[in-house]
């Protein structure tokens, strides 16, 4: 496995991961469509996953990869619940624009 890192250095993965994460953050902050925001969250999660796998290889330690599996499973579950909530919101409000969701206002 190490040869992969020889061809493309570990810093490259870091840059890619940081880029993906930033894209996710900006997506969250700038978009108002809940589904797009969900996708942004997934991008952030996967940025972290990528980083975990990269360092796992770098350190010759498999536990990072195991951790990624857990992370993916949790993300899948979260998406399932989150999408169900979104469907329910859409049925109630007829829209998934988060600017309409102000019922929790203090």
């Amino acid at each position: 496995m190490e040869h992969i890192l020889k061809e493309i250095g570990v810093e490259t993965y870091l840059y890619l991961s940081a880029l993906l994460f930033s894209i996710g953050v900006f997506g969250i902050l700038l978009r108002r469509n809940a589904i797009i925001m969900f996708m942004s969250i997934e991008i952030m999660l996967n940025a972290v996953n990528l980083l975990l796998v990269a360092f796992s290889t770098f350190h010759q330690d498999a536990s990072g990869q195991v951790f990624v599996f857990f992370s993916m499973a949790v993300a899948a579950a979260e998406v399932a619940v989150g999408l169900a909530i979104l469907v329910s919101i859409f049925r109630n409000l007829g829209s998934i624009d988060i600017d309409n969701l102000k019922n929790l206002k203090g």
Partner: protein
Amino acid sequence: METSFVLLLLLAPFVGFLSNIFFGKQLGKTGSGVLGTLAVVVSFFVSCYFFSQVSGSKQPINVHLFDWISLGKFSINFDILLDQLSLLWLLFVTGIGSLIHIYSISYMHDDENIHKFFAYLNLFIFFMITLVVGSNLLIMFIGWEGVGLCSYLLIGFWHKNQEYNDAAKKAFIMNRIGDLGFLIGIFIIGYLFNTLDFNVIKQAVLTGSNPEVAGWLSIATLCLFIGASGKSAQIPLYTWLPDAMAGPTPVSALIHAATMVTAGIFMITRLNFLFDLTPDVQNIIAVVGAITSLVAASIGLVQNDIKKVLAYSTVSQLGLMFLALGLGAYEVAVFHVITHAFFKACLFLGSGSVIHALHGEQDMRRMGGLKGAMKVTFLTFLLATLAISGIPPFAGFFSKDEILMVAFHENKVLWVIAAVASIMTAFYMFRLLYLTFFKEFRGTEEQKHHLHESPMLITFPLMVLGVLSVVGGAISLPGNSWLNHYLEPIFAHAPHEAHHLGTTEYMLMAFAVVGALIGIGIAYSKYIKKSEVPAEDSEITGFAKVLYNKYYVDEAYMAVIVKPIYSLSKFLRDYIETGLSQIIFGFGAVADGLALQGKKLQNGNIGFYLFAFVFGLCSVVFYLFFLR
């Protein structure tokens, strides 16, 4: 075996209490009375059993129930100590308690809350037993507080009358002052000896004498005496006892004459080895006792309420007992406690019988001539009156005479005070007897028409107590005292040498009897020969008025203690309390204002929340990577 008997002794009255308080209504009036009586009778029989055991073997019975408190070196067990002293107390508490329960079945029969009455009486017996049999000061304190509570409940039993409620509160608060002293005494003793167990303290005291301990010990015993003076109605805490007569008469007989008020004497006798080490405190006790007996007796001279006279007489007799305690003659005090329990219970129950016959009349100016209508009551009352006046061979003669004899040998001034108090006792008791039972009836025609002897349930206890008032002195005859011999193991030092009966002793006896006869003679000439009737309240003048108003002690307490406390409370409420609450409200207002501003952040806009979230995260990362 012994453990189960001890539990039976303790729990029988408690079970009686529980069943009367929860199921009393269903049991019916007689049912709850019989149940309450049975509960106490069971305890009485168990006490008799233990008494026969201990007086045979002369070995105290110690029963370990469970480990209670354990704090490092300091530990307290819940142990029961049945020795000569506690058994003596158990016998007359449960014995007289049973008689008074029987009496109450009839006396309280028309009361709608009779089941509550018996519940409280049972609870009282339970706590009194706890007080007496505990093997350490803390168990005694439980009983001590418990009997105070029952006293409060029973004084205010007819709670629809506000005066009675006030009397109950007064008793409770006065006792509280004493209890605080008792508690401080317990703390000091626990600090000095690292234990509260009577036997362990006794061993520690008898084996070594640490000078540092001795200094603190005086304070401890003084505090204990303050506790005793609250419970046993000594100056300056005696004023609650006369007011406690607001309770039903059986309560006055049981709690405020025969048993509870002797708890202070029990405690001091129990700790005699400590008091022996602190002669200063003993002197204080003797002086307080003597003065109390004189003051109370002088007030008793002019009272017109039949129960008030008996109440002051109780305070006076308790003063004599404390005099004996202070002079180190514990066994004499115990002797007087016992004989006093007999004749004072008899007197109170007799007065209850009179009040019952007159439908609640307590003023002796409205009585008179009852001896024809109430033969049994009169006869037993006469016996008890002779006993309390100190006429031989009745019980009171022997015990009072021994106190006087001890006082004569130790301190002539105290002897004179006690002797004068005894003469006064003879006078006011016969004044009471003459006004109540002799001459013509002075009440209304209707009352006269209804005069009747009380039923058997009332006269039976009277007869038993009357007989005991006659023969009770036999337990400690001068020169050959069963009681002194029996109580010997209790005392650190052997009881005073039984006074060999020389000329002085016979002279003293003769003097005491002559004194009593003089008192009786004055009463006779005033109330029989001249047929005087005490003046109405408004016509009392001069020193008699001071006496009639109890030396204005209540008024003085009101002015010196109660009023200042009220004004202090008012000041604290109006100024300090208001100031404090302004500060507290200020804190509240600040929090409120901040919250008003803070709630604007929670505007419900998810985008804003997310922005705040990311901003916070970025700040943390920035801080961790660049600023640290």
